[in-house]
């Protein structure tokens, strides 16, 4: 009896406190909204937004609804996050491995990179790339081509646009290649476990991935045209490159800053993961006659990945959340388009901020669920 009361009282008090706080806020919000004559509701989402967005992945203009504006912002956020995650993984893995290099200079260069970029606020880095580094680029009319067909100018990065014919057939061929790769991998694993033979799976996979789409090209089912960026005069002093895809400088700066910043954390995770595999494992593998490549592929990586993935997932989540800093350089992401412009126009603070926060929550939880699933898949399976 005594024990029960002891455990119920603190719970009751906490609950009361939480309910009281929420209740206090709700009542005040109700009163405030009554006073200003706003009624709570999400009906405004279907109204005409009447504002334009600079950069959008889908067709959008002022005549579309607020819901569509929300979608534009969300897609832009996802675009930045995906690009950032890809680049930060590439840089992070390279730097993380470089930090363990036997070469003194490489080790220390990597260490300096990590120490510097992780100790400078991300916002400052974004500002640096956007307002200082990218602003120093030449105007479109004075730009020398980079890699022959792309142009890095102060107005953005212009790359060729690929125009596909029968793009779906190409997708099917890639799908077919992936399915056959899965089969070959399973066969290779079986072969390895039963007879100890090894197939060059990586080579075969790469070959298949090239071969299948190549067949569709040769047979003429799929055609590809490349639209190169062409200099076009808008007015007397204003030039742009037309026909290609233009990557706005905001996106460039954001992806650069996010991936360089997050890569430092990914690099530390990779380093910790590789160091976390005990030396005995490597020596044991070497003593049963595996080659260095096989040791890395079959012994070190599978164990290191288990250590690397959970903290790296956290970094991916952080990158996604940090992409909201886009608002600072006016890249039209979710925060700028929706929590900025749309909020200004409608004045519906509670609805819009809550939708924005819920969206980020959902994004975060989705990424962490996906990564948990992957983590479970590669976890040690006891036989």
């Amino acid at each position, binding site marked *: 009896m005594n024990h029960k009361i002891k455990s119920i009282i603190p*719970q009751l008090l*906490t609950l009361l406190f939480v309910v009281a706080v929420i209740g206090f806020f709700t009542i*005040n919000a109700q009163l*405030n909204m009554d006073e200003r004559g706003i009624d709570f509701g999400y009906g405004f989402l279907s109204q005409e937004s009447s504002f334009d967005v600079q950069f959008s992945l889908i067709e959008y203009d002022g005549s579309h609804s607020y819901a569509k504006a929300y979608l534009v912002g969300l897609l832009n956020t996802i675009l930045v996050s995906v690009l950032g995650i890809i680049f930060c993984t590439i840089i992070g893995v390279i730097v993380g491995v470089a930090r363990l290099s036997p070469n003194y200079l*490489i080790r220390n260069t990597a260490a300096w990179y990590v120490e510097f970029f992780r*100790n400078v606020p991300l916002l400052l880095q974004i500002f640096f790339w956007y307002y*200082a580094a990218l602003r120093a680029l030449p105007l479109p009319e004075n730009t020398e081509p980079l890699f022959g067909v792309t142009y890095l100018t102060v107005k953005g990065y212009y790359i060729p646009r690929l125009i596909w014919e029968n793009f779906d057939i190409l997708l099917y061929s890639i799908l077919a290649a992936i399915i056959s790769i899965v089969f070959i991998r399973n066969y290779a694993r079986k072969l390895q476990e039963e007879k100890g033979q090894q197939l060059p799976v990586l080579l075969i996979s790469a070959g298949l991935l090239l071969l299948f789409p190549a067949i569709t090209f040769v047979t003429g089912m799929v055609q590809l045209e490349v639209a190169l960026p062409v200099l076009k005069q808008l007015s007397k002093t204003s030039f742009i490159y037309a026909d290609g895809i233009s990557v706005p400088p905001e996106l460039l700066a954001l992806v650069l800053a996010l991936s360089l910043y997050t890569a430092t954390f990914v690099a530390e995770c990779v380093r910790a993961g590789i160091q976390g595999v005990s030396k005995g494992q490597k020596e044991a593998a070497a003593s049963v006659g595996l080659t260095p490549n096989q040791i890395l592929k079959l012994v070190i990586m599978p164990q290191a990945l288990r250590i690397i993935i959970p903290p790296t997932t956290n970094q991916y989540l952080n990158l996604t959340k*940090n992409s909201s800093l886009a608002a*600072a350089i006016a890249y039209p992401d979710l925060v700028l388009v929706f929590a900025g412009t749309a909020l200004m126009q409608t004045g519906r*603070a509670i609805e819009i901020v809550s939708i924005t926060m819920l969206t980020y929550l959902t994004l975060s939880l989705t990424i962490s669920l996906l990564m948990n699933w992957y983590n479970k898949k590669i976890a040690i399976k006891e036989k």
Partner: protein
Amino acid sequence: MININILKPNSDNFQTYLYIGSGFIFISIFDVILRSFFNLNFSTSLPGILNFFLPLILGLVGFQMIRLEYSGNRIVDKINESVNNNTFNAGLTLLIIFLTLIATPPALNWMIFEATISGDTKEACVATKGACWTYIKVWFRRFMYGMYPNDFHWRINTAFITLIGFAFVGYFMRGKLKNYITFYYAIFYPIIAFIIINFLISGGSFGLEWVETNAWGGLSLTFIVSFFGLIFCFPLGMILALGRRSELPVIKYISIGYIEFWRGVPLITVLFMSSVMFPMFLPSDAFVDKLIRVIAAIILFEAAYVAEVIRGGLQALPRGQYDAAKSLGMGYWRMQIFVILPQALKLVIPGIANTFLALVKDTPLIFVVGLSEVVGMLQMAKTNPKWLGYAMEGYIFASILFWAICYAMSKYSQYLELKYKTER
């Protein structure tokens, strides 16, 4: 069999190889130095690509020639071991050396030799090609104190010096007083800090003129925000961590919900909330200062991260510690305060330091609500019509500033980690 590989030394002919090889390396580095520092190129007669890669090729040949294990020469052994253990590494070594050499002259020129620091106006910088440190010099006070009136800067300085003074009081607590050290830092010190900042920096009484928080800014605002953030998010995070580990379901799930919610949203939306949504939640006649709202938002946000870090420490403690404390008849709070938390906190010093670093690095985000600390002041200075075009100098200055602060903090946390390390 005669070894016909002419680039491979053996212990007999190593001396010759060493001389020739180091000669090659020396020539390759000397070539790059000539090219970058003096703009001279002695191999222009060679075709373009060969000319461009000549130093790399020479260097690689040189490194190849001196690569021999146990050569008998200690310096050569050390070089081989650390930068020259195979061709790939030798190539990377050369690349790093060359890049450094190529980047040094323009960087030095821009930062030092062609830079200006004299004068008080933009005119001093017009003629120079290098950096305009005059810009930093002129705006220095703004970067430090924001729009705070110039005459009152002594108030900020005095407040910070007094606060630092009070922070050191703990060192002088001896004997019986030492029991109260936690109490002092956890409860008394924040109150003192608030009083000092309220009366000295904000003013409004004792004959000090009132300065509204909109005028605060620069590095001092960074310090104020992160100081209160650090002080308050720690105890809140501790309570949340204990709550998440609690056996009482209501407390446990409320804590989990709180932590997961704040960790799932970006700080910028939280600040948005504090500035546009929070006033709606208060009685219409209540007014909370913008700065206080921002600091409260940061505390609530960072506490969730601190809670997760501390939970890691709590989970790492063996069960025996709990059982031992309970078998001595300790209640929940006595067990947590005297047995569990001291050990758990010791374990998570690096994690907490990382969270605090993140907090300091997050302070520039308060630009969202219109408060400008260093980075915000930079943006303001950059758009000042009298000083257009010196963004780079400002960003470099601020990066060095933040880097120094964060680096010092991380070094201090490493020191603490060593100091409190106990063998188990």
